[in-house]
């Protein structure tokens, strides 16, 4: 028996190894959300990111001058906007005080730099040099001055990995800023689209898309992109909207993590509501 098995192994070991390793891959694929697997992943990418951050620093120095010029321009534009918004803010506060509204502004931002990126067409992720030590948690939105970048997925001590908008696993509830229509935004591997929008809905090319108030991931409205075109779906009843993101996901280097995850209280309320159905 042993001789037979030994003979089989000698003659077919490539195929046996192939089959076993494919099976192992499939088992690992099914264990992606296992907390222990997440822990191992956090240790692995945290250790590797320590090295990549050194190399990334060297390359980012060369881009500093260009980035400085862009920041100066953005600063000037923002200064003008701030002075306008300050006036609106005063009026807004007075009106909110009159109506006894809760203040929802003033979200803390954690600055971070991208130390490495995985530019797969479908699984676009970025590694950030901010982690548990900086109070980063999974689920926190990643933004820059242009708009939404992605969502933190895994967190190690000093680093974190975020899924960008160009990741097929990231689905986001978004809203047309003008018509207030909600939809699900997703990356197909080729384009960023809002799916299953009824043909009768009021959406126009050039409309701004922001994260929705009903999003279970993002707590406040953040600019996402602009409507490029409105295309008929295969069924004829629903269409899909192509969206061009505001942020250039391939060249972005410095980002902010919005240190706020969706309120657990709201989640629990919603969960209880659905349980009662």
């Amino acid at each position, binding site marked *: 028996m042993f001789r037979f098995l030994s003979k089989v192994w000698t003659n077919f070991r490539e195929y046996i190894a192939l089959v076993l390793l494919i099976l192992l891959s499939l088992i690992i694929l099914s264990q992606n959300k296992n907390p222990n697997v997440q822990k191992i992943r956090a240790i692995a*990418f945290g250790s590797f990111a320590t090295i*990549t951050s050194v190399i990334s620093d060297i390359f980012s120095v060369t881009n500093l001058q260009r980035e400085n010029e862009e920041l100066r321009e953005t600063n000037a534009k923002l200064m003008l906007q701030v002075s306008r918004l300050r006036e609106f803010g005063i009026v807004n506060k007075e009106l909110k005080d009159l109506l006894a509204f809760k203040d929802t502004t003033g979200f803390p931002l954690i600055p971070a730099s991208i130390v490495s990126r995985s530019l797969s067409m479908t699984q676009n992720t970025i590694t950030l040099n901010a982690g548990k030590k900086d109070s980063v948690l999974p689920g926190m939105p990643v933004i820059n001055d242009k708009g939404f970048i992605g969502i933190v997925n895994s967190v190690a001590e000093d680093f974190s990995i975020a899924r960008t908008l160009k990741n097929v696993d990231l689905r986001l509830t978004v809203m047309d800023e003008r018509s207030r229509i909600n939809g699900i935004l997703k990356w197909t591997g080729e384009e960023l689209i809002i799916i299953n929008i009824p043909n009768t809905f009021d959406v126009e090319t050039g409309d701004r898309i922001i994260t929705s108030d009903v999003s279970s991931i993002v707590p406040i409205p953040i600019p996402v992109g602009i409507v490029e075109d409105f295309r008929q779906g295969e069924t004829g009843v629903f269409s899909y909207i192509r969206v061009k993101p505001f942020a250039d996901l391939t060249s972005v280097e410095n980002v902010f993590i919005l240190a706020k995850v969706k309120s657990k209280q709201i989640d629990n309320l919603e969960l209880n509501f659905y349980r009662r159905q």
Partner: protein
Amino acid sequence: MKWELITPFITFFVVLLVQITVIPLIAIAGIIPDLVLISLVYFSISRDQYYGTVLGASYGFFIDLITGSLLGSSMLSKTIAGFTAGYFSTETKKDINISTYIFSLIVFICALIDSVIFSFFSAFDVQTNIIKLLFEQALLSSLYTAMVSILFIFSPFRRRKF
């Protein structure tokens, strides 16, 4: 013997470091060459098919862990890519397959297999346009990888006895 075992892994970590920090700078419309695959094909041809299969699985597993992609997806695609590359590891043709343009052709075939399997596992759903998916994600990135592998043919690194 020990050095022979360690070399592919040292190479892997150096190449992966370059892959995730420097290579994005030469991306064309978001498409980048896969340096890890080039090194996998090289080691698979220079050793044997069994070695290539196991090495592919190890490379894929570490890529999934470090880059944050769907765990198991690269492992599966790189296992099959390593197995395919191992087919070209016949004793008489090893040297030719590594030191001529045939190497780029093998890299292209393996990259195509790798990209197709990875794309299907990570991005496939009902609304996906399969032809567009194969063209943009598999064919273009495989061509880019094969072109970059031409540089490897002229490098002094590959000139060694097996």
